């Protein structure tokens, strides 16, 4: 059995949840509003790509690789 630390799910699923909601809002916004809705879609739907570039770049990009390589204590 594992013991959940308070707010643990938020640490694990917080960012994915925000990314998911931003994506859905983006998908719908371009469907409903033509001009600004499109820009919102580019941002919301494109957010996962930005995160992938950021974290993959950080891991393989050099000096911070070792720091991100250690699991969180506790």
């Amino acid at each position, binding site marked *: 059995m*594992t013991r959940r630390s308070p707010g643990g799910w938020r640490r694990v*699923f917080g960012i994915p949840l925000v990314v998911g909601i931003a994506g859905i809002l983006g998908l719908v916004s371009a469907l409903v509003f*033509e001009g600004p809705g499109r820009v919102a879609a580019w941002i919301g739907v494109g957010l996962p790509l930005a*995160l*992938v570039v950021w974290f993959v770049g950080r891991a393989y990009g050099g000096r911070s690789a070792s720091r991100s390589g250690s699991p969180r204590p506790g």
Partner: protein
Amino acid sequence: MTAASIRAWSFVHTWTSLICTLFMLLLCLTGLPLIFHHEIDDWFGSMTEASPATGEKAPESRIIARALADHPGKVVQYVGWDTHEPDHVYVILHDSPAGDPNASTSKVYDVRTAAPLGEPGSAFMRVMLRLHVDMFAGLPGTLFLGAMGLLLVAAIVSGVVLYWPFTRRLDFGTIRPRRSRRVAWLDLHNLLGIVTVAWLVVVGFTGSINTLAQPLIGYWKQAELGAMIAAHAGRPAPARLAPFDAMLARARAHAPGMAPGFVAFPGTPFTTGHHFAVFLRGDTPLTSRLLRPVLLDGETGAVADARGLPWYLTALLVSQPLHFGDYGGLPLKIIWALLDVVSLVVLGSGLYLWWTRRARGGAPAGAALPEAARA
């Protein structure tokens, strides 16, 4: 989460993914060019340029007469307009009104001069489309791919559940390139998978809905269209078709503020043996997807009936842009393509993770957990 439940979810994730992976790879690879089918058709297609955008539009009847003259022995099934290509009129012809859709002839005509511009699309894109839609296996192939799409959704749900034990001791986005290659790929699989969940669920689910298009349209014909034509039951095929332009003008007048999307000729799958069906659409990104059918008498051109689409066809039509990604300009298409590539990496890394675990002696999934997650 107990080790037993992790093993159970892992079993679900492994097998739902494995069963659909091969087909998902096919769908991602063929879907990639399909995102840009307008652009690719422009490069590789054989169409000539439309006339400069000046002058009056030719009456549709002239275009239809030209199409019939170009294709002796054939009949017109549909005439259509594409909001992305205002200079083009599409004419679909066949040997008979109810002929097999995959064997029809499509031609594009100039909206002003009525001159033929060539065939829409390119052979390459037609092959990609068939591979993507039914793998050249007709309706069973389409429905099979729809079932694979639902398996994908199950794989995503179980993947999200497993995301918890695999990452709960790690910072979000942790990738450990200094650990074994397998750990690095596991981290990458987790990150790429979890950030694309919403997009992939939407694209997978709307794709599955799209596979039901043919049965849904069949049901609509039986239920709704049946009710619309009950008053005209048993009418024979028109001996002489009503003048097209006057007929279309009546349909337009019946739905102010809307423009015709396509016209189905009497006897084709989208209407009755006796009626024209004009499908009109609105002018916003959303309403341009929602069609309003107006039935008109094939002989007199008088409006026979009109009603909104039922919810299931509305769902089908709204799900299409969400699957195609073609409603937010070129930037959205590029984002769609990049997310498609990310999905390919998720599929490939998942396959790799399964294979290496198997190669190491098929240890149960729980044993593959990072030690921190098994505490």
